[in-house]
């Protein structure tokens, strides 16, 4: 498990992207450095209860999360969370997940 979302940060203008880009749409630079954004807030969630062509399906919880740096990402949830929950983001087996952040 690796904390955060991998973001490619444009070394010219500082914009961060997920998924990675080849050219920065903001400034046109092709130079990026790897960065990580650690947290965000849940905007919407859903439960995927059924998938066409998949008989072995079990429900999955997904969230749209706006990171603290502004990227909007899709993250898996291990359990349902209400909208506006502050979350920590992490990678597990190469996929992005979110879980409720500890209260400050």
């Amino acid at each position, binding site marked *: 498990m690796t904390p955060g979302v991998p973001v490619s940060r444009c070394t010219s203008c500082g914009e961060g992207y997920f998924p990675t880009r080849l050219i920065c749409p903001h400034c046109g630079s092709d130079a990026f450095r790897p960065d990580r954004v650690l947290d965000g807030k849940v905007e919407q*969630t859903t439960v995927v209860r059924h*998938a*066409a*062509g998949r008989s072995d399906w079990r429900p999955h919880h997904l969230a749209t999360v706006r990171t603290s740096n502004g990227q909007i990402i899709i993250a*898996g949830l291990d359990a349902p969370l209400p909208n506006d929950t502050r979350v920590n983001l992490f990678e597990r087996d190469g996929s992005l997940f979110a879980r409720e952040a500890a209260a400050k």
Partner: protein
Amino acid sequence: VSAVIIGSGESGYTRHPAPEQSTHTFLRDAVILALKDAQLKLSDIDGLAICSFSMEPDKSIDMAWRFGMSLRWLLHDTNGGASGINMLGHAIRGVEAGAASAIMVVAGDAMGLEYFAKMQANYNRAVRDHLAPLGHGGPNSMFAMLTQRQMAAFGLERKDYGHIPVSQRAWAAGNPNAVYRNPLLMEEYLAAEPVADPLSRYDCVPPVSGASAIIVSTADRCPRHRRPVRVRALKQSLNYDHQAGDGLRTGLTKVASELWTTAGVQPEDVDLAAIYDDYPAMVLAQLNDLKLIPDDDLARFARVDIGERKFPVNTSGGLLSAGQAGAGGGMNGTVEAVRQLQHCAGDRQVPNARLAVVSGYGMVMYRYGACVGAAVLERGE
């Protein structure tokens, strides 16, 4: 030279293809029917535009070979739900530039549910690497969350969305090619099995197999008893926001004013709309972006204009009733608008239809569609 649409063909759609049916045979059937409809010979066709996810490993030239076509103009489109409008635009310009005189535009797919699931998981790198491993189960989950955003932003309830599949199912009763033609009741819609909250079964476009085609040429090639269909305007917007927005406004917002100005007509002048309907939320989003919904009142438009049939939307039954034959879904609306404007729409004919607006929407790169286009079509003289 002014290019027009002179004919159309649909293979017929099915949930369960027969063993002898394949992507190639569906595409062929649509081509043959379009030729018959336009009263052209195969040798009259000198251009081909084609979009199909499942014709691999064949490319457009392989399909020309299989179709028995010798060509001087060729396009292999990959834009899924937006391919129909994209190919139509290229074909019109191809004929008007003198690059070809009669272009067959065809799209379709045949895929079993297993192939369909595999395609959805490998749609592009972003989906393959970041969504499929989460078990996103295809785009339903993305449009589930988009629908939640639309409900919150525009004050919509589930029942408001229900008017779209219910009304389209009633239209489908008049379309022999629609896969689902039995009436759908609002109660059934509301009680349907959930798929991805808040979407249920009737909100999600059913995958089918089939293909659709149109022929773009000049008016002198149009059969004598038929009127050609003229494209008054066609505009597209591709990767309009880099997937950084909420998806509630499509790229049509960038081109709608130009579309109506070029067409020389107003949204209220059109007699029918064929709007890409992978999900009810996207029907409302595109209608709104095309300035067909007054005052951003999506709920009222769904309830009154669509629900009470004050304004004909997706008279073929749309993809929600006719089914989405993969890339063929991108042609469904254009074929329907052409048939309506040629006054060949049988039991579902909109009386005296003269002007139609058609849209295509697709390529869900990460969270929502990146490609959108629309055309204003007119019954020719």
